[in-house]
């Protein structure tokens, strides 16, 4: 009800506002937009009923490596047999070494049928008795022993906790985090199976009810900030929603705007953000929402190469964690905005656009070479435009038409016109 009143008031004095908020007069009534969205949601849920493809379904010429969720006891056994193997090597006087699947970019493969990146089967040997690998090897043994402890005690710790067990050896968290990924690759399990979690980063708000460790959470009643996405997905269950779509937001600022304006009440939706590069928990959560609720996902990111990169991480996975892309990726995310073509279409003033740096342009050109961009001709066109105009803009550029332009004009109009790629 509150929304309706607001709408009317906005309409009545729109004369003065339409000048400062361009294109507002193009907006149809909310009911009409809702109709469009409903037909989108229903067409989507009917089309996505087929079972998603897995790597095993495809007969690929190169063998690929994928990990799966393992039970604690099997993780423990895997570590123990590895340690025994190491012990035998040491006792025989040969030193010891690990065979670690390579996560370098040459060992990645984009599979168009799956629309995600997978890891090929190349491995590197990490011997203890070599000056360049001795540190990493030692850290690997240390992490293995720590994870073994977690298995015995059946508890979860954060990556930070892990790092603090031996700061002197790990030096900084980046190193222990990287080795943690190596370990899950080596053992063939997901990182969640290692009982190591990242601190909460993502938040969700909107028309979603789910259980977190047995407690029912209603995301419409979580205040302005929303609910922090639980770090371990196995706690989450019983998802229910009357939303018509999921809105994925790159940045905290845009998320706060939409949450405060209760955008999800005007157009039933679920709003998610990971505040920048998405963490594992947010990606798992998004995937779970999408597969269980069967909703279309629309993304609102900055109009710069990094916005698209973040979008690609949600969609096709990151190279760093491609070994688990099957669980982490959410296929078929639509790029709603802000797209390079929107800069002129919405007449975003010059002073809100930023010139791209050399580095930006390089990243943009590199992205054009990536398969996951190439598969979508619309994206290629947009990215070409960005590299050509050498201009970028953040979501906040829309605030030049008023802070609420994003939630009151831009997004509704985008939805009405079904303007996504």
């Amino acid at each position, binding site marked *: 009800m509150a929304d309706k009143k607001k709408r009317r008031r906005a309409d009545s004095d729109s004369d003065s506002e339409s000048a400062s908020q361009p294109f507002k007069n193009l907006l149809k009534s909310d009911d009409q937009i809702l109709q469009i969205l409903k037909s989108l949601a229903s067409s989507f849920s009917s089309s996505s009923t087929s079972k998603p493809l897995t790597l095993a379904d495809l007969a690929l010429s190169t063998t690929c490596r994928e990990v799966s969720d393992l039970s604690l006891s099997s993780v423990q056994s895997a570590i123990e047999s590895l340690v025994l193997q190491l012990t*035998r090597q*040491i006792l025989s006087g040969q*030193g*010891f070494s690990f065979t670690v699947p390579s996560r370098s970019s040459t060992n990645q493969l984009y599979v168009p049928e799956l629309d995600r990146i997978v890891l090929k089967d190349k491995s590197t040997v990490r011997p203890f008795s070599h*000056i360049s690998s*001795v540190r990493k090897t030692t850290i690997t043994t240390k992490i293995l*022993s720590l994870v073994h402890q977690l298995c015995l005690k059946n508890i979860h710790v954060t990556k930070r906790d892990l790092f603090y067990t031996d700061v002197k050896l790990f030096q900084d968290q980046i190193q222990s985090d990287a080795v943690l990924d190596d370990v899950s690759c080596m053992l063939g399990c997901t990182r969640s199976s290692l009982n190591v979690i990242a601190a909460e980063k993502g938040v969700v708000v909107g028309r979603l009810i789910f259980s977190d460790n047995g407690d029912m959470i209603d995301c419409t009643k979580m205040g302005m900030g929303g609910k922090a996405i639980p770090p371990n997905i196995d706690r989450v269950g019983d998802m229910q929603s009357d939303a018509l779509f999921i809105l994925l937001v790159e940045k905290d600022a845009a998320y706060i705007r939409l949450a405060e304006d209760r955008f999800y009440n005007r157009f039933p939706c679920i709003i998610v953000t990971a505040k920048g590069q998405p963490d594992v928990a947010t990606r798992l959560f998004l995937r779970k929402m999408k597969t269980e609720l069967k909703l279309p996902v629309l993304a609102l990111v900055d109009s710069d190469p990094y916005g698209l990169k973040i979008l690609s991480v949600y969609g096709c996975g990151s190279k760093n964690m491609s070994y688990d892309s099957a669980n982490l990726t959410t296929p078929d995310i639509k790029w709603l905005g802000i797209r390079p073509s929107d800069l002129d279409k919405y007449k975003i003033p010059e002073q809100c656009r930023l010139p791209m740096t050399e580095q930006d342009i390089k990243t943009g050109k590199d992205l054009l070479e990536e398969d996951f961009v190439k598969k979508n001709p619309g994206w290629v066109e947009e990215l070409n435009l960005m590299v050509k105009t050498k201009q970028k803009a953040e979501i906040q550029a829309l605030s030049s038409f008023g802070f609420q332009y994003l939630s009151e004009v831009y997004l509704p109009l985008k939805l009405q016109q079904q303007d996504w790629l």
Partner: protein
Amino acid sequence: MESESPVETKKSKSKTPKKAKESILKQKSPAEFFAENKNIAGFDNPGKCLYTTVREFVENALDSAESISELPVIEITIEEIVKSKFNSMIGLVDRERIDEALYDDYETAKAREKRLAKEARAQEIQAKNAALGKKLKEHSVSKGAKNRGEASFYRVTCKDNGRGMPHDDIPNMFGRVLSGTKYGLKQTRGKFGLGAKMALIWSKMSTGLPIDILSSMRAQNYISFCRLDIDIHRNIPHIHLHEKRDNKDKWHGAEIQVVIEGNWTTYRSKILHYMRQMAVITPYAQFLFKFVSDTPDKNVTIKFARRTDVMPPVPVETKHHPSSVDILLIKRLIAETSKQNLLQFLQHEFVNIGKPLAERLIGEMGPEFSPKMVVKSLTDQQIVRIHQLFRQAKFDDPSGDCLSPAGEYNLRLGIIKELHPDMVATYSGSAQVFEGHPFIVEAGVSVGGKDVKQGLNIFRFANRIPLLFEQGGDVVTRTALKRISWNNYKINQTQDKIGVFVSIVSTKIPFKGTGKEYIGDDISEIASAVKSAIQQCCIQLKSKIVRRMQAREQQERKRNLSKYIPDATNAIYDVLQEMAKSHASKKKRYEEGDTDIIRKVSDRLITKETLNEKLTQHVEKVDYEMALEYATQTGVREEPREDIYLQSLDGKGNFSDFHSPIFVFRLFL
């Protein structure tokens, strides 16, 4: 001498009409102008005056010795003169203060009250801190403001083995501003051609004492002595004494002595830096620097020894490049030329204009120009036309032959001599052009060394003199800080002791700022030349650094591997122990082959020590094998490095030099 006549004619012209209005328009002599604007010549404050005096003397001395191809030997002495001594020098009696309140540093009753209260408070706090057992900070006793009248005076003496000066020219060379010899297009050290004259004006302003000059030329059987000061208003020398003395030692050169106000305390480090950097860029000179005062522990004596006897050639005077001249200069060249017609004028007064090009240029100027026209008859408009064409037409770049760079060899020697770096690389660029002036950039990069602080130490040289002030805006500083990615060359910008030496020589250095203390960053030709010169040095260094890192890796391999053994075996053993526990409590079953090890762990047949020992043995084996491999690959190239210096020979013999960028081979016949 030249400069005076126009001044005087102007004077007579301008004075008469103004007098009628009774307004006083003063005509300034050049000496007066510089006396009033002494900051533009680097005489901003007493401290800087002392510094600039030293550098003007040193640079003059170097020029003088180089002009007769003599290896420079320069002695510079700064002698502190306390006030009472100074007063007695000028025949002034020291007077006690009678009316204390008259003086600026007099402490009024109110001020004293304030100070005493403050001191009492400070004491209280100190007592409290002492009671609390806090560490006592040395409490600085607040000193009264430094007396304003308390100036310090210094006698600066500079002795060289240069050309000397003709007896009769001495008064004019010192006592007349702008009567210098440095006016052609030539790479010169001096900035304005003021040199010692500014020091003389400063001494006149601050102490009123005259300057003493001793000079003798080669094969001259007498020494000229001259004591003079300058009549600033008339810009003429005022001679106290001018005489000839015996020259028993067959000395040639000059010795100049001046007493000025200065400030050693604040400019001590600048002066010493200057001397050190001068020693870097002129390793063929020998400098003896002395500071003498009444308190012996303040005294400084530094000898910068000669490390080479190869001197860069004396820069030659060159003609102007057509792209670099302005209208005034064209007019001056026309006035001075001995050539009759336009064709000859173009052909002979400029570089890079041959006869065919001169003819084409004249054809392009328009119908009113012809090759045979008398050059002195050119109208102002016609000169402007020539100037415009010079600006637009394309000429060959001037060659760098007229320049005299320090030379890669000398730069390298200078760096090694003064910094003793661990490694050094030098590079000499080819001549390039900016606005018609040729320039050469030479660079050196050193790593390590003594008295070098961590991070970037930048040494800038322009026409072979060090630049010490206004470092921030300089093209060299900005390039080194912002445009070189040191990491790419395995150099750590914050941790390593990096010395960056850039020497730029040109017929015209594009200085910025009033004091001509830095070269602007806005000239892309110079900026890119500086960048590439530094990069070339870095490339040379990189391979050395990589090789050294490999050698170090060899030495430290065993230690670096061994240090991780406990961490690794602890981690493995922890897991083994847990396994043994669960095996004992039958929590978990293990396969047949595995139980063997687990049982041994339980029975303490396999312990942490066993693992440690086995791993250590392996590391030792690997280390031995790798060392062997390294040795066979590199051969016995581990040359012991030692500084060698060959004493210079009494080189009267017949010899010829073979030059290479990094050494000179002299063959005595």
